[in-house]
């Protein structure tokens, strides 16, 4: 079973990295948002360091959103999803493969880029470290929750517009705990935000393949 599973992950990564793919787009969007905010707020380093966690977390979530609407829609529109559904993989495995591919092509690069962008906010070392760790833990949750929304809207022609309305409210806990961890690190406190974020991410990643598979089943029958 591992052969088909890995082949699907690799194909999605290949598609994300080729022209018209979304990986580079999400990174560029993230970098631009993170550059514009300090320009708009002005050179108040204390203020910038304070808001860095929240701004970068929101920026990362929005950047990940950019590539989410095509997660299933591309395969649905051109008929690939029919062929994938008939493969030896269960739809739950397919959903997990797509979740992994989305994280590797979007969540992980965003996380790796975040320490560089934290410099623009004058975020001190412990804060940057907390940001990096919270994104590393939290971005899988973003991909997982996003995958549910993407599978729900895969047959809608303008699904990309309704997708944020569905998943952004569900991602509020990730943003709260993620940004909270950064703020706590600035104050040299420990508020357990990372623990709560881990719990949220674990639940999201575990449940997402089942929910997404159910949505795909519904849409294939539609």
């Amino acid at each position, binding site marked *: 079973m591992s*052969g*088909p599973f*890995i*082949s*699907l992950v*690799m*194909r999605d990564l*290949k*598609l994300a990295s*080729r*022209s*018209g*793919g979304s990986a580079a787009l999400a990174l560029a969007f993230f970098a631009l948002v993170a550059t514009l905010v300090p320009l708009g707020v002005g050179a108040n380093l204390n203020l910038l360091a304070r808001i860095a966690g929240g701004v970068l977390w929101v920026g990362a979530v929005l950047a990940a959103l950019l590539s989410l609407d095509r997660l299933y829609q*591309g395969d649905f*529109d*051109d*008929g*690939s999803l*029919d*062929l*994938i*559904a*008939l*493969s*030896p*993989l*269960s*739809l739950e495995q397919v959903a997990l493969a797509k979740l992994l591919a989305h994280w590797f092509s979007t969540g992980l690069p965003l996380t790796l880029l975040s320490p560089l962008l934290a410099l623009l906010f004058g975020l001190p070392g412990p804060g940057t470290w907390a940001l990096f760790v919270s994104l590393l833990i939290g971005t899988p949750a973003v991909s997982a929750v996003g995958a549910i929304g993407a599978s729900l809207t895969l047959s809608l022609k303008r699904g990309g517009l309704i997708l944020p309305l569905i998943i952004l409210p569900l991602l509020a806990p990730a943003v709260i705990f993620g940004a909270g961890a950064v703020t706590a690190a600035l104050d040299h406190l420990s508020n357990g935000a990372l623990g709560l974020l881990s719990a949220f991410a674990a639940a999201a990643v575990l449940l997402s393949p089942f929910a997404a598979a159910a949505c795909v089943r519904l849409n*294939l*029958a539609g």
Partner: protein
Amino acid sequence: MITSLIAQKLTCVRGERRIFADLDFRVSAGEALVVEGANGAGKTSLLRLIAGFLTPVSGSLVLDTDKGAIADGEERGRHIGWLGHHDAVKPQLDVGEQLEFFARLYGAGGDVKPVLERVGIARQRELPCRYLSAGQKKRLGLARLLMSGRGLWLLDEPFAALDTAGRALAADLMRTHCASGGMVIAATHDPLGLEARSLRLEAA
């Protein structure tokens, strides 16, 4: 190996609309079945129902294999080779990559080169799929069928977009598949070019 597909009193409803009702048919290994009917008579719905994407509101559909009978839709899907009316081709991938991905996804080993040669697109192996014509994409779909190693082929308009040689090729592939104990169910308006039973769907 599959031995037969038996449908009894099959009824399909999509949305509020009844597509067909009380459909009976039987296909045995080595046979081809042509599904005929006017536009909107439910040919594609029947194929999607056999593939397990749709569930019938009533009636039964059983695929007999040498390992026992299969009534579950998703389990039945593991025996199905699918050629839909969408091309399922990614413009960013080249022809070879596309077919190699599919072979790995279906756990089918073997080299893709002879298959590409068989369907006449071996020279386009390195070509990104965005440059393929509609007919060449259809040939790639036929290559996928061959590669899948599945027993029951479900074909939706297999001849659409194909040139004369392509149609002869598609008919030949179906004939070979049936001769080796496979099953073909095709929805088409054109003559299949091989001996086949026909099932006519009347608009409900």
